[in-house]
Structure formats: structure tokens, C-alpha cells
């Protein structure tokens, strides 16, 4: 069964590449990017699968025990657009094009120096024998980095101006997870890329785990009255835990519950709020209406404008 699914997946990826992508690359004189493009197809297909799995899990939950009624369909549709752009590879493609040459230059400089970047497995050889444990360690390290990136998004005025788009949503659903300013996404790519350079990029041979992590992140934004219980709330970020972060008093520097996957960081750095019965309304009344209910372009423009203003003010 699994082999048949794998074969079907490979066949579809091969067909897309050989029929649509490779001839286009050949015609455009870009064959040196053929292998990267093939990887890209896998990324896009996997992104599509993630969207389907997340939908199948989160949508019934939202219908079952919603925190609030779904009244603002337009803003949900905007969030869906964000998800499609992010998960189906368009925004990462732009980031890739922008950063590929920079990354190659940095790699070249690193090579010139003679330094071989270590991987976690080099530092902790035991991880070689336990690839699943290695993946878990990678996830923990990356999540720690994400916690601090999130803290900084709220701490610095110019960065908050961008991140505010994510917090402006008053009709939060599982689609809201990907609602970010494109510049914020790029900073995130550099941040994670830098961390990856330090510890090595984890292998992608555990697609099921990756999907589970993706579901966890999307579920934390879901419009569902759900907590993970006395113990679970301390282990994985729940819809209750993250909704509190999106509450009207959670914006800017006054925020709580910054963790993305593991709440332990909020516990360690004393930013956690573990009350299990609080499901506040989301959004930030101080933010402009464009950010809350505008379309994708208007939100992006508003974020850019506010960031410029914040930078001018800081000078």
C-alpha cells in the first residue's frame, strides 16, 4: 500500500517535471537548475499535501467547537491566499531567487576559509544511529530559534510593523498561520537559514513528522475551543495557548505565549500563560483597518508603510 502510494507520488512528480518543467528550463537555457527545479516540484507537491491534511483535520474541529462564529469570509479567503502562496512554493521561490546567489557566495567564502561547517551529528555522534532522535533535536533547536525570532518580532518597532499583519486578523482560523508580510517571511528564511548553517539542515526523510509539525502549527491558530489538558498544555502549543497570544492584549511587547511548537520556552523565559479556560477575541484594535480586512496587496503595503514610519521614528 505504502509502496503503491510512493510509486504514484514519484510518477506524478516525474511527469510534471518531464512534461512541463524540464522542457521550459531547456528552452530558457536554465538546465543547470534542473535538479533544484525537480526538488522544487517535490516541495510544491508536499506543500499541497500539507494543505489537504491540515484542512481535513482542522476544519472539522472548527465546525465542532468554534470559539466564535465564522462571519468574515473575505478575510478568511485572504488568509487562504497567504497559505497557497506560502505552501505551494511561490513565496519561497522568490526568497530562493533573491537569496540563492548570496547563499552561494557565503558558502564559497566558508569553503575558502577551509572551515567545514559542522552538523549536529558531528558534535553528537550518537545522533547518527538514531535519525528520528536527530530530527527531534533539530526541531527543538529550530523551535528555540523561532521562539526568539517571535520575541524580536514583538520587541522591535520596525519588525512589529510587519508582524502586525499576522496579529491584525480578527477572524482567526487555521488558515491564519501563514498570514505574514513577505519581508517578514524573508527575514524568517534568513534567520532559519543561518541557524541551519550552524547546525546543518535536517534531512527530509521523515515526511510524516514534517506533516505532523505543520498540523500542530496550523491547529494552534484554529478557531476551536480546545486545550490539550493539564499535561499536554506544557508539551505542545495548543489552540488555547496560541489564541491567548493573539488576544487583543497580546500585541507588541506585552505579549505572552510566543512559542511555536514547544511551550517550554515560554515557561523557561517566563512569558507563558497556562490558564486553560481563557479563549479571548483576537486582533489588535490599534492596528489600521487595512491590515485587518484589506486584501493581500493592501496588507502588504500597509506593513511596508508602517515599517518605514517605525524606522523614521527610531532615528
Amino acid at each position: 500500500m505504502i509502496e503503491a502510494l510512493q510509486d504514484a507520488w514519484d510518477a506524478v512528480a516525474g511527469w510534471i517535471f518531464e512534461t512541463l518543467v524540464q522542457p521550459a528550463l531547456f528552452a530558457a537555457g536554465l538546465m543547470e537548475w534542473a535538479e533544484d527545479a525537480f526538488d522544487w516540484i517535490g516541495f510544491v507537491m508536499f506543500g499541497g499535501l500539507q494543505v489537504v491534511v491540515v484542512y481535513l483535520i482542522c476544519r472539522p474541529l472548527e465546525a465542532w467547537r468554534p470559539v466564535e462564529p465564522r462571519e468574515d469570509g473575505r478575510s478568511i479567503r485572504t488568509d487562504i491566499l497567504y497559505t497557497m502562496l506560502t505552501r505551494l512554493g511561490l513565496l519561497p521561490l522568490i526568497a530562493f531567487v533573491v537569496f540563492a546567489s548570496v547563499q552561494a557566495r557565503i558558502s564559497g567564502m566558508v569553503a575558502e576559509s577551509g572551515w567545514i561547517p559542522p552538523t549536529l551529528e558531528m558534535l553528537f555522534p550518537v545522533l547518527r544511529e538514531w535519525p528520528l532522535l536527530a530530527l527531534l533535536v533539530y526541531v527543538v533547536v529550530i523551535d528555540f530559534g523561532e521562539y526568539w525570532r517571535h520575541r524580536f518580532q514583538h520587541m522591535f518597532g520596525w519588525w512589529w510593523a510587519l508582524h502586525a499583519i499576522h496579529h491584525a486578523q480578527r477572524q482567526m482560523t487555521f488558515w491564519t498561520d501563514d498570514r505574514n508580510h513577505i519581508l517578514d517571511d524573508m527575514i524568517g528564511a534568513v534567520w532559519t537559514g543561518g541557524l541551519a548553517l550552524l547546525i546543518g539542515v535536517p534531512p527530509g526523510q521523515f515526511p510524516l513528522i514534517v506533516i505532523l509539525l505543520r498540523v500542530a502549527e496550523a491547529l494552534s491558530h484554529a478557531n476551536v475551543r480546545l486545550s490539550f489538558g493539564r499535561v499536554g498544555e506544557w508539551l505542545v502549543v495548543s489552540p488555547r495557548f496560541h489564541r491567548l497570544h493573539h488576544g487583543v492584549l497580546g500585541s507588541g511587547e506585552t505579549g505572552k505565549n510566543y512559542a511555536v511548537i514547544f511551550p517550554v520556552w515560554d515557561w523557561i523565559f517566563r512569558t507563558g500563560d497556562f490558564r486553560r479556560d481563557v479563549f479571548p477575541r483576537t486582533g489588535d484594535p490599534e492596528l489600521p483597518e487595512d491590515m485587518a480586512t484589506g486584501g493581500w496587496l493592501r496588507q502588504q503595503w500597509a506593513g511596508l508603510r508602517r515599517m518605514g514610519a517605525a524606522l523614521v521614528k527610531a532615528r
Partner: protein
Amino acid sequence: MRLSRRQALSLLPGLALAPRAAGAQGGTTPAASPAGDLVFVLNSGEANILVLDAATREEKRRIPVLREVHHLVMTPDGSTLLVGDSGANEMLFLNPLTGELIKREPLSNPYHLGFSPDGRFLCITSLRRDQVDIYAWDGSALTLVKRHSLPDMPSHLAFRPDGKVVYVTLQGNNLLAAISLEGNFDHLWSMEIGPEPAGVMWNRGKLLVGIMGSDYIAVADPETQAVERRIVTARGAHALFWNLKGDTIYATSRVDSRITTIDPETLTVTRSLKVPGGPDDISFDPQGRLWVTQRWIAKVAVVDFEAGKVESIRAGRSPHGIFYASAQALRAPATN
């Protein structure tokens, strides 16, 4: 018939860099692969090395690697298979008879690699870091003797038979570069060769280069540094391989998904066969069949070129390098 160590090793595809006679090869009716033979397939897209039993074509094991394995090479004495894990900056040392992992060593971004004909140097390209490294090999350890910064995207390499020069294709700027393996290991020259060059091979004083951005093999004269002719094969011309007899060149084309044979004497195309899924690297079994990675469809093809038969076996995501390890050849005792 008792084969000398040298003759036996010449049966190994990784060592078949230059043509030489090998009388034990090539029946007209391909038989089953001998028991004990293994096939190593580098699944670049899913971080493992697949080890197939050549006789049964069953999967024997998968060796996990850290990141991204692309190419491999046998040590000059035929005892160890070196596999480069470019993403992990590691070289893996494997026993080709058993698939056992002997050791791993940190090494900067190994992509394509090859030993000089005299076995003294291992040259390694780094596609993503724009570097070509030359390591001295003493039979057991590698020592970096020269690192060339060589933009853009150094891809495949080949040697002059006297071992004094290594040639490298530069995929990103359409060049073919020559590097000395003597003195200061200087970069000797670079020449325009064609759009997105990939595989390169020495043949009778000329260099044959697969032009991936087009449909031909460029024939260059290293003395004059000029392209003398073009052998049209198929779109996406990629890598080049000698058969075990050393009397035929096989060229893969990844866009049109074809393998083309070329007469090394006349440099004319003798035959072309459709092999689906972007055929990439080739290794030969003792029966003369081709074991080919089908890059875009996650399979390995066993190709009986004479009969025009193609049989595919499941491999893994984006299979790239491949090596047929003939147990008989590897166990043959040295006689000189």
C-alpha cells in the same frame, strides 16, 4: 582463466576510465547476474544508499546518510568505495562486497569525484561552492593539497591518461577548465565549450563533453582549446561512459530520455535507445547490461541495449550515482 588484479579491476565501472581490452566481457545472450554481486544506488533526494542484490534485484539494505549523496568512486586498489555526501560535508568509505560502512570523514562538499590514473590524487568538484579540491591519496588517507576557487558550478571531471591534467566542466558559465596535477596544481586554462556542460571524457587525445543545454556532445582539442565538432545525440546531453570492453561510448540525455552509443574511433552515433525518466549515471554488469539511474522517476533501469529491453526497479527519490560491484572482480587475487 585467472584474471590479474588489474584485469579484474578493469571490470569495475568506476575504474573503466580509459578503454582497454577485457576478453572476459560481453556475451550475446545476457545471463542472470552472478550471485553475490551488489548494486549501489545513491538516492540523492532521500538521504540513503540503496544496496540491491544484482541477481535477485531485491533490496538488500538502505544505508542512511546525513544529507545528499550524488557520486561515488572506487579506490585504485578496488578495496573501498568512496561516496560523497555533499550536503553533509562527508565522505563515506564502504566495503563494496558487503555494503558495510567502514568509516566517515569530514570533507568539504564532495560532488563529483575521481582518482587520477596513477591513483595518487583524488579530485573533487563542489557544485554549490564553486571549488575544485585536489587531495593526495596514500592508499588509506586523503590530504588536501590544493583548493581552487572555480566559478561557476564545477560539475564533472575527467583526467588526461598520463595523469598530469584534470578537466572540469563549469556548468554555470559554459566553460571547460584544465588544472595541472603537477607542481603548484595551477589552473592552466578555460575554454568556451557550450551551454551548461556536464559529463566529460578523454578519448584519443580529445575531450568529449555532454552539453546539457543543447542536444550534442562537444569534441574539444585540449591542445588548441577549440571545439572541433559536435555529435548530435538528444536534448539534455549529460554524462558519458565507456563500456567494459572499451569499444563503445554511452551518452545519456536527460531531457529526451535517451541513451546513445558512439563509436570512439569515428565519433559517429551508432544507436539510440529510449530509457524513460531522465537517464543519468550508468554502471555495467559483467554481462554487458547497463544499470542506469532514472533520475526523475525514482527508479533504476536494467538495460539490455542489444535487445532494446528496459526493465525498471524501484530505487528512491532522485537516484544519481550508481555502481555495479562484481564480486568476482573484487575478489580476484592480485598476480603482479
